[in-house]
């Protein structure tokens, strides 16, 4: 992983490639790489769909190695949804394959002279770019089938669906999983629209003839990887809960906590939660011959995914994530797992962020476009997005646009990005992260529950009532530095929180692989550096502290069962990045 591939889509005579050494970007991976490049090379005031924006695709620093859980890939750019810097990441095979091909990043630059659509093929022998207008408006599933026919089944694909081609702000970049299905998505912030603006429909990767990336200290790496794997397997969350139920295990628990946003954030509890819970989902999948335990990429030992079959036992979609089931389920008053799974399939096929689409439909339901709980109407609305009807174009540009078009006040967005599945009035510390993350409302921005180990941003006494701001700060630093940049799956967090030896094993994996000592302090410094880059970009793009706020209704409206509003003051929010 010692080179960067730049593809100038606006070059005279057609797209031109340039393979460069890493230079200033040496040692970076994942979010550190994407945000580093965007902050340095993209003019903050450029139009997100214009020639000056760049789409950066970067595997984590450990991706392509034998390190378990190292299959996350980051996609960065200036976001058409937020107008600020964006990093969205995904599982699937893309990270491992791209890293084994030796690329630390692919950068799509410039803008095509016309509306020709291109496909990019990369293998160990080089890069080939071809125009292929036969791919226009293909869904991701048909597209991948076509690529399989052309290049065989030993490939991995990164692609956009019709939503990306139509440059919708909710468009995702899809990554294929181990079964070569486009089920994994860098969903947030409209990264798919930026790929569409570059005229690239699909990047096909074939790592035939390559091998695992070789660690600098093989013995240390191997031993640490073994200890890390054992740590993940023995922990009840990573070794039992996630494999058994997937991330949707949170539905019942959040609902019980009164923090499950229902009917467009108008209640904290959903009466139909048990029908769409992780427990019910797993039982349904198993009963229909699907899998309740499955990985999204090779080298995953947690196996939090699965396969969801329809009533006849035919594959419909992968096991939808908690956020997807919430967004299209409780947030829209829908308690029908089959309908939610169908919408997930459509989202994946059209190339859409499930969180943004669920939020947009929730806002549309509040506006009276459909009734809460009407699953058939929700499916039809998603189809309108895929078809690009006027209503579909409104919805496909996210909850904020939908709210403006239909005059809805209760629009759950920060920096125009929809809030995920935790009500910030119940769990106010997460509301702090939603408000202040440079990414817009993002549940993964403060996810690496290792802050107490890293001791970043100062110690926090968990027994004192204050501390939400400090905890959010620490979590955001730890997430940016430890998981988003290494390519490690976020779900390693609990095992390294509870088991110091597992945390040490992770640090040893990094240092064993790079040959350079990597300590908790190094991770914290990297996290601060990433966040500083991102915030500086946003300030230069016109953001101010006024953008680090939750929507007003969270501070005014109370919802059952707790009937409390968001109480963290603006002054406290402004302290999050004071380190």
């Amino acid at each position, binding site marked *: 992983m010692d080179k960067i591939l730049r593809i100038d889509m606006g070059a005279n005579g057609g797209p031109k490639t340039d393979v460069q050494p890493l230079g200033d970007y040496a040692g970076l991976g994942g979010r550190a790489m994407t945000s580093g490049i965007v902050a340095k090379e993209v003019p903050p005031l450029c139009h997100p769909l214009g020639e000056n924006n760049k789409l950066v695709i970067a595997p984590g620093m450990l991706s392509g190695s034998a390190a378990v859980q190292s299959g996350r890939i980051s996609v960065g750019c200036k976001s058409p949804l937020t107008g600020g810097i964006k990093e969205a990441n995904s599982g699937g095979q893309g990270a491992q394959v791209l890293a084994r091909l030796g690329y630390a990043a692919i950068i799509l630059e410039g803008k095509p002279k016309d509306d020709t659509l291109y496909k990019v093929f990369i293998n160990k022998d080089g890069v080939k770019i071809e125009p292929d207008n036969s791919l226009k408006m293909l869904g991701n599933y048909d597209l991948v089938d076509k690529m399989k026919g052309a290049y065989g089944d030993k490939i991995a694909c990164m692609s956009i669906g019709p939503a990306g081609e139509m440059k919708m702000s909710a468009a995702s970049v899809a990554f294929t999983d181990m079964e070569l299905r486009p089920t994994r998505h860098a969903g947030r912030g409209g990264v798919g629209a930026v790929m569409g603006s570059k005229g690239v429909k699909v990047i096909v990767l074939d790592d035939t003839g390559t091998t695992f990336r070789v660690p600098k200290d093989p013995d240390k790496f191997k031993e640490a990887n073994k200890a890390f794997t054992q740590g993940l397997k023995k922990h009840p969350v990573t070794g039992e809960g996630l494999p058994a139920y997937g991330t949707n295990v949170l539905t*019942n628990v959040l609902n019980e906590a009164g923090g499950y946003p229902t009917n467009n954030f108008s209640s904290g509890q959903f009466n139909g939660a048990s029908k769409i819970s992780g427990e019910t989902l797993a039982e349904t999948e198993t009963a229909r011959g699907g899998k309740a335990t499955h990985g999204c990429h090779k080298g995953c030992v947690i196996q939090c995914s699965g396969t969801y079959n329809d009533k006849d036992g035919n594959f419909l979609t992968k096991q939808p994530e908690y956020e997807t089931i919430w967004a299209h389920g409780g947030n829209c008053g829908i308690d029908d797992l089959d309908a939610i799974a169908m919408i997930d399939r459509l989202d994946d096929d059209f190339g859409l962020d499930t969180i943004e689409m669920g939020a947009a439909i929730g806002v549309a339901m509040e506006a009276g476009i459909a009734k809460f709980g009407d699953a058939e109407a929700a499916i039809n609305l998603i189809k309108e997005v895929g078809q690009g009807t006027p209503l579909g174009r409104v919805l496909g540009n996210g909850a904020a646009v939908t709210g403006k078009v239909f005059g809805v006040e209760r629009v759950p967005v920060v920096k125009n990005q929809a809030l995920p599945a935790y009500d910030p009035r119940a769990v*106010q510390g*997460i509301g702090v992260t939603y408000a202040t993350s440079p990414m817009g409302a993002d549940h993964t921005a403060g996810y690496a529950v290792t802050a107490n180990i890293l001791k970043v941003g100062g110690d926090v006494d968990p027994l004192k009532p204050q501390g939400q701001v400090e905890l959010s700060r620490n979590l955001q630093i730890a997430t940016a530095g430890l998981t988003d940049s290494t390519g490690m799956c976020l*779900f390693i*967090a609990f095992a390294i929180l509870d088991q110091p030896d597992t945390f040490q094993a992770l640090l040893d994996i990094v240092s064993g692989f790079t040959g350079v000592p990597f300590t908790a302090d190094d991770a914290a410094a990297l996290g601060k550096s990433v966040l500083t880059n991102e915030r500086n970009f946003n300030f230069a793009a016109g953001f101010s502290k006024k953008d680090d706020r939750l929507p007003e209704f969270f501070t005014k409206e109370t919802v059952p*069962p707790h009937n409390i509003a968001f109480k963290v003051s603006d002054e406290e929010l402004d302290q999050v990045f004071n380190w």
Partner: protein
Amino acid sequence: MSPHFIFRAAYSWRPFNEAIILNNMINVKLTLILEKTPIPIFYQLLSKGFIIHARTGCSIKELLCEQFGIKNDYLDKRIQTIFLDNKTVDDVKSTFIRNGSTLALSAAMPGILGATLRKGGWYAPMRREISHDKDIPSDTGKKGKITVKLFNLIVRELGPLFLEQGIRVKGEDFYDIVARNENIFMAGCKKAIKDGNDIDPEKLIEVEWEGKQVLLQIKATMN
């Protein structure tokens, strides 16, 4: 995890069983003999909540360990997330059950939310607005009704045992489960006994369940 690691042998769970039988508000008593395969479909009932009679005015720890006979170690290590009346619980010794309380039990959950909701965890301040304050007991020793909810790994481990003892649920909730899983249920139901009389499992769909309280007992066949 076997019952050996969950329950204290000296207690079995007779007190709980007696509490249910004492309930005089039951409209229908239904016993099902099922193969193992369909039993998990009824876990939804346990997650949605079922009513039991127990001595109230006691701490959560006393209810679970003294009345239900759950081992201290299981409570400490396995039941990592607890809600009482929708509020997160940090200290099981100083949080008290009242008549009408709803108690929900979960294993450790993933991610930042899991860490935040966990009992006594580092990230508890992030949800302090919904944390259960320490309180003082009332109605000590009196019998009352509480609703219990079991989630995820806890329902998988405690669920069969609670079902075998019998749980009180709404008739419409029972019907909903059977109707949505009719094929699996009918294929695995070996015997059904309604109010002391055998009933063809297929006829259960035709019973009017709306508005009825059901004492549902589910036993697994030996094979």
